[in-house]
C-alpha cells in the first residue's frame, strides 16, 4: 500500500508536559478507530512504534520548550509540517512549569536534583509560538476532547476551526449556571478566562482557576475588586493567576500588577 496511500499524515509531538493533552486523543474512544482509518498516524510514539517520514500534513504539538535541544527539535518539526497546531496550556503558554520564569524561583533544579549540572534545562519554559510560527493554538489544561476533534476535522478539511473566544462566564450563562461569585462569594477567574471547558468548575461549586488561559482582551483590572470582595488578598490573587497559564501575557501582567501595587 505505502506509495498509494493518499490519506493525510498526522503526527503528534511531545515537549515538556504531562502527556494529558495527547492522551485526550486516545480518550476519543468513540472516534479513535475511525480517525485511524481516515488518516495515517505517522508519528505518535505514545500510541504506536510505527513511524513514517515527513512531511506531515498536520502536526499536533504538546508541551513547552525548556531545553536547548528542544529549541532545535521544534524548528525541525516545523520544517516538516504543513500545518502545526499547539495543544494545551504547556504548548500555548509554557504551562505550570513556566513558574520558573518568575523572579524569586532561583535554583529550581537544585531543589529537586542533587546534581543539577547534568541537566540540559533552560531557565525558562516558553510556548511553542515563541520559537516557530503556529497555525492554531488550542487552549486548555487539558484541552477539551470535542474541541480537539473539531480542530483535527477542520484542518483536514482545510477550514478554520470553530472554537469560541468568549469567556467561561458566557458558558455559565449559556448553561443556566448560577454565578458562584455572586451567589456564594467564591473567587472565580471565569470573567477573564477563555471558554472551552463548559463552565466545569462552577458546575462543581468551585471557582474557575483558569485552565484555558486568558480570553481575548480580558478585563483583568476590573476583576480585581470582585476578587478582593470574595476575600482574596493580593498574594492570593497573584497565586490565582500564576498557575497553568502563568506566563500567558494577560495573566502574567495582572499577577505582576498585584505584586507591585
Amino acid at each position, binding site marked *: 500500500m505505502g506509495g498509494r496511500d493518499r490519506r493525510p499524515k498526522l503526527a503528534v509531538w*511531545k515537549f*515538556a*508536559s*504531562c*502527556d*494529558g*493533552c*495527547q*492522551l*485526550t486523543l*486516545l*480518550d476519543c*474512544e*468513540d472516534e*479513535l*478507530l475511525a480517525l*485511524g482509518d481516515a488518516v495515517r*498516524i505517522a508519528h*505518535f*510514539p*505514545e*500510541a*504506536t*512504534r*510505527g513511524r513514517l517520514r515527513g512531511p506531515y500534513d498536520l502536526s499536533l504539538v504538546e508541551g513547552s520548550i*525548556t*531545553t536547548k535541544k*528542544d529549541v532545535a527539535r521544534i524548528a525541525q518539526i516545523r520544517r516538516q509540517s504543513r500545518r502545526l497546531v499547539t495543544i494545551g496550556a504547556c504548548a500555548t503558554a509554557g*504551562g*505550570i*512549569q513556566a513558574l*520558573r520564569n518568575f523572579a524569586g*524561583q532561583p535554583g*529550581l*533544579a537544585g*531543589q*529537586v*536534583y*542533587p*546534581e543539577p549540572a*547534568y*541537566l*540540559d*534545562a533552560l531557565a525558562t*519554559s516558553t510556548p511553542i509560538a515563541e520559537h516557530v510560527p503556529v497555525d492554531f493554538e488550542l487552549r486548555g*489544561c*487539558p484541552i477539551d476532547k470535542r474541541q480537539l476533534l473539531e480542530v483535527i476535522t477542520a484542518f483536514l478539511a482545510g477550514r478554520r476551526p470553530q472554537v469560541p473566544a468568549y469567556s467561561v462566564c458566557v458558558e455559565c450563562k449559556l448553561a443556566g449556571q448560577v454565578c458562584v461569585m455572586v451567589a456564594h462569594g467564591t473567587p472565580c477567574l471565569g470573567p477573564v478566562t477563555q471558554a472551552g*471547558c463548559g463552565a*466545569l*468548575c462552577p*458546575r*462543581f*461549586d*468551585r471557582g474557575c*482557576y483558569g*485552565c484555558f488561559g486568558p480570553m481575548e482582551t480580558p478585563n483583568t483590572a476590573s476583576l480585581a475588586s470582585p476578587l478582593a470582595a470574595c476575600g482574596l488578598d493580593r498574594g*492570593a490573587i497573584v*497565586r490565582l493567576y500564576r*498557575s*497553568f497559564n502563568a506566563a500567558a501575557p494577560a495573566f502574567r501582567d495582572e499577577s505582576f500588577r498585584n505584586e507591585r501595587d
Partner: protein
Amino acid sequence: MSATDGTRTIRVRELARVEGEAALKISVRGGRVQEAQLNIFEPPRFFEALLRGRQFAEAPDITARICGICPVAYQMSAVQAIEQALAVEIPPPIRALRRLLYCGEWIESHGLHVYLLHAPDFLGYQGAIEMARDHRAAVQRGLKLKQTGNRVLTTLGGREIHPVNVRVGGFYKLPSNSALRELVQPLREAREAALETVRWVAGFEFPDCERDYEFVALQADGEYPIDQGRIVSSSGLDLPADRFDEHFVEEQVRHSTALHGRRRDGQSYLVGPLARYSLNHDRLWPLARKAAEDAGLGPVCRNPYRSIIVRGIELVQACDEALAIIEQWERPAQPAVPVAARAATGYGCTEAPRGLLYHRYRLARDGSIEDALIVPPTSQNQPTIERDLEIFANDWLDLADEPLRWRCEQAVRNYDPCISCATHFLRLEVDRG
C-alpha cells in the same frame, strides 16, 4: 561494530507506547550483557520546587499536572498527606467516593495499557490502531472499558484528565444519586469485559522469565490496596506511610532526568500490579481471585510479562468494587469536612495504577507549603527495569537488532512506565562494542 568479538550496542532512540520520553541502551561485551540503561530524557518540570510557597489547598490541582495518565493518584496521595498533617478525619462515605474515583482511574489506565500499549507487543503489531485491522472487536472492547473508567472520572470529577472536584477535606460537590446510578450498567458491562480481558490475555505467549523481586506495595485490612494502607514488602517490611523515608531513597544517575528509587541498603525493588497482587492475593474479591485461578496464575507472580494478566485481574477487581461502592453508598450531609491550617508535616501513600506513590508535605502555620517530596512509581521501578534487561537480554542476543530491540522495548513496557511522572522525570541503545 561486528558481533564476532561478542560486542554490540543496541539502541532504541525513542521508546514508543510509554507515557513520556525515554530511550534504552544495552551494551554487550564478550557475548554477555554488560549494562542496560533506561535513558530518560524527558525534560524535568521541577514540581517539588514550584510547590514551595503555594497554599496546601492548591496541591491536589498542581500535582495532578505531573501526570495526565494518573492525575487522580496524585490528587489522592496529596490530600492524604495534607489531611494527615492537618489532623483531618475523612468520613467513610467521602472516603468511599474517593475510592470509587480511584477505581475509575485504574479502569481507564489499565484499559489503556492492556489494550493500546501492551497487547500489540504480544500479537506483533506496531500499535493498537494497526492491531485493530485484525482484532477490531478486541480493541473496541478495550476502548469501551477505558471509556467506562473515564465515565466514572467525569461523573465524580468533572473531566477525565485533571478532574476538578477533589479538595483537601473531601470534594467540592457530591454527585447526584441518579448520576451514580447511571454508572451501574456500564460498570456491569465493564466487569464482563474485564473478565473477557483476563481470558484473552491469558492465551498470549509468555517468555519464561522469573525474577526474585523484592515486592513493595500497600496492604490494608480486608481490602485490596488502592487508596490507603501500610507499606509492606516480600522481605517482611511493614511500616506506615510516614516512615517511607527511613527505608527508601531517590538517587540521581547521569543517564536519566528521573531519580532512581532504591532501598536504603542499595537494593532495588518493584512496585506496581505484580507487587500488589503478590502481596495481596488473599485480599482480592472472589470474582477476581477466580479469574486469576482460571488464568493459571498462582498467588504470587514473578514473571513481569504476565503483568498484563494481573492488570486484567485488577480491572475485574476495580469494576467489582466500584459497583459495590455505588450500591452501598450513603450520602453524607456535606461534600467536605472543615480544614484548618497549622504547622505540621504529613505523609501520603496510595497505589497509582503503576504502583506506590508517596507524597510528603511540610506546611507552615499559614497553610503554605514549605517543602514537598514526591516519589512516583516509575522512579522506584527504574533500577529493576534495568536489572530485568541485564538478565533477560542475555537469552536474546542471537536475535538480529530489530527483533532484539522490540523484545527489549516490550520488557520495558511490562512496567507501563510513566516517564512524565518520573521526571518530575525513554530511546533503546544496544552497545555491542
